[in-house]
């Protein structure tokens, strides 16, 4: 166990898995940096966006840590070919707002390959991206979607994703990048499809998704002052998500608030509210509520700080 930053936990997971399994290949723009310039004395200039892949090229070489041209559709499809032939590519798509350029490869090619080929085509791919645009990806069956909420879950879910025989999309939040948690030094996996209850409560359930989990915990602490006992559930796997655990919590508390940083319409928050309404109907004391940004097509990637502050629901909103 060590106190570890989020980005480092991801980095550790990758390093351990690459050491453990030679079929793990890292792909993405600037995942090392200064590609092809080792002879000029340059290597690992960036270590990937925000250092997620730092040091890997030194340890595993340029054959397994591959900087790519800016061709997301191309290299995501390339990863599908690697996966179909026994490799386990881990692919960096820098930000979720860039994912649309590779949308066809992700939703038509990768999500469908196993199913349509009746299990012949294996797709053990991990796609990793910073950002909150997860709902539209969760819409497509065939992709496992996860959002770690701290360094501990980041390492466990990254490891699980790499070992999984299914395509897994990891949504990392930049807001968590420098957050710290106690993380086991060795390798471990978190099971997909399992939410965790982070705090017991009796009056309401606060459901967190990735970075909103911290907001939920904060809100629960504030609510306690006001004499309200809130249970906090951390979703972790966004698709297919853990209906039983969330249902059980809401059946106990009778109330559900889902906090979600993605666009509100056809989002994960309404997905969860709608399902839980059916599974916890006879115990619901109030209609489940969503806390999301307003329905505006603002930029997540580069919004000015002032805009962002208003744009994102804060814990007071909960």
């Amino acid at each position, binding site marked *: 166990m060590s106190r570890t930053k989020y980005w480092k936990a991801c980095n550790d997971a990758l390093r351990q898995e690459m050491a453990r399994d030679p079929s793990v*290949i890292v792909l993405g723009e600037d995942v090392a940096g200064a590609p092809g310039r080792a002879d000029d004395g340059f290597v690992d200039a960036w270590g990937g966006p925000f250092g997620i892949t730092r040091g890997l090229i030194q340890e595993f070489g340029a054959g397994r840590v591959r900087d790519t*041209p800016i061709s997301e559709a191309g290299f995501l499809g*390339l990863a599908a070919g690697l996966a179909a032939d026994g490799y386990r590519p881990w692919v960096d798509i820098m930000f979720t707002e860039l994912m649309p350029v590779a949308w066809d490869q992700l939703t*038509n*090619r990768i999500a469908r390959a196993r*199913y*349509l080929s009746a299990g012949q085509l294996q797709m053990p791919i991990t796609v990793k991206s910073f950002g909150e645009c997860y709902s539209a990806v969760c819409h497509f069956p065939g992709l496992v979607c996860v959002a770690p909420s701290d360094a501990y879950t980041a390492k466990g879910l990254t490891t699980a994703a790499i070992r999984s025989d299914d395509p897994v999309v990891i949504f990392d939040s930049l807001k968590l990048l420098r957050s710290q948690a106690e993380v086991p030094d060795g390798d471990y996996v978190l099971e997909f*499809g399992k939410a965790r209850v982070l705090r017991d409560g009796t009056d309401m359930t606060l459901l967190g998704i990735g970075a909103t989990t911290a907001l939920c915990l904060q809100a629960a602490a504030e609510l306690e002052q006001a004499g309200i006992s809130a249970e906090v559930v951390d979703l972790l796997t966004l698709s*297919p998500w853990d209906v039983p655990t969330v249902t059980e919590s809401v059946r106990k508390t009778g109330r559900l608030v889902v906090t979600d940083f993605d666009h509100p319409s056809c989002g994960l928050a309404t997905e969860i509210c709608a399902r839980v309404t059916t599974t916890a109907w006879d115990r619901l004391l109030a209609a489940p509520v969503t806390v999301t940004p307003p329905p505006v097509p603002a930029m997540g990637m580069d919004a000015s700080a002032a805009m962002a502050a208003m744009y994102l629901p804060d814990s007071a909103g909960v």
Partner: protein
Amino acid sequence: MPVDTALVLDLFARMSLCREFETTLVAYASKDGQPIGHPYQGQEAVAAGVCAALAPGDRVLSTHRAHGHAVAIGCDLGRLALELYGSGEGTCRGRAGEMYVAQLDVGYFGGTQIVAGNLPMATGLALAAKLSGLDRIAVAFVGDGGVNQGVFHEALNLAAVWSLPVVFVVENNGYAQTTSTEYATAGCIVDRGAAYGISSIAVDGQSALEVHDVVREARQRAVRGDGPTLVEARTYRYEGHFYGDQHRRYRSQAELQSWLDRDPISLLRRVAVDAGIDEDALAAVTTQARDTCVAAFERARTGREATLADLLDGVFADPSIDRR
């Protein structure tokens, strides 16, 4: 150079099988109310020439116009016919249809409904071969219309910068649906490959031998580590984009006739006879092809329908999250 008669017979057999498969498919499926898919007649020399040039272990990816490729590479025709009929006994349990059916044990990784959508995957299969140090290549087919998709460009650039063992086969049949190549495709297709420094060559797509020779050479270059090749095979589809398409509304009878006059099977038959192969031997090949195809579709008629399990199973490999 003397003609390699074994090769000629191989090519002739593959082409005959493609032709017979399609005519049988049309006959059966129209009676049985099943989908026919995308016609391949007229283009058989491309599929046959390419597939005959490959070695076991090589990987082939197709397009929407897929059944010709599936037949030429040697897919199990009975299970293929069952698949096209949507039967749970099909190659892919009736899920895939023409455009996604795959049979990995013969190297057939399937087609796609997205024109050019499989080209990136081909670069990945090629990189896998390279990383594994295997003398194996990937081949991806694409149409003259597909070369205007963005991923065509991305895949070619990736193949070039990493010198991947992949061959891109552009089947230029002159049209993308009703749209002619001249109208939609600026410049010359081989120049597009050359712009990335990729060896690019145009061949007569009606000559199975020529296609074969170019692809065999490309294969050798690829396994030597000398990188990708783009082959533009100039060819023609006799039928419409689909059966029932009124293709005479966008192309002339004279144009069609000029291609019928260079039918790839007839052309190869002439080569075969000139090389001393017995006409009866060729006829026997055709007959055998026909019998095989008829048997396949007779079987398809008796296939069991897809069940609920055929529909729901195996979205995920992980049983703990499958069927959620």
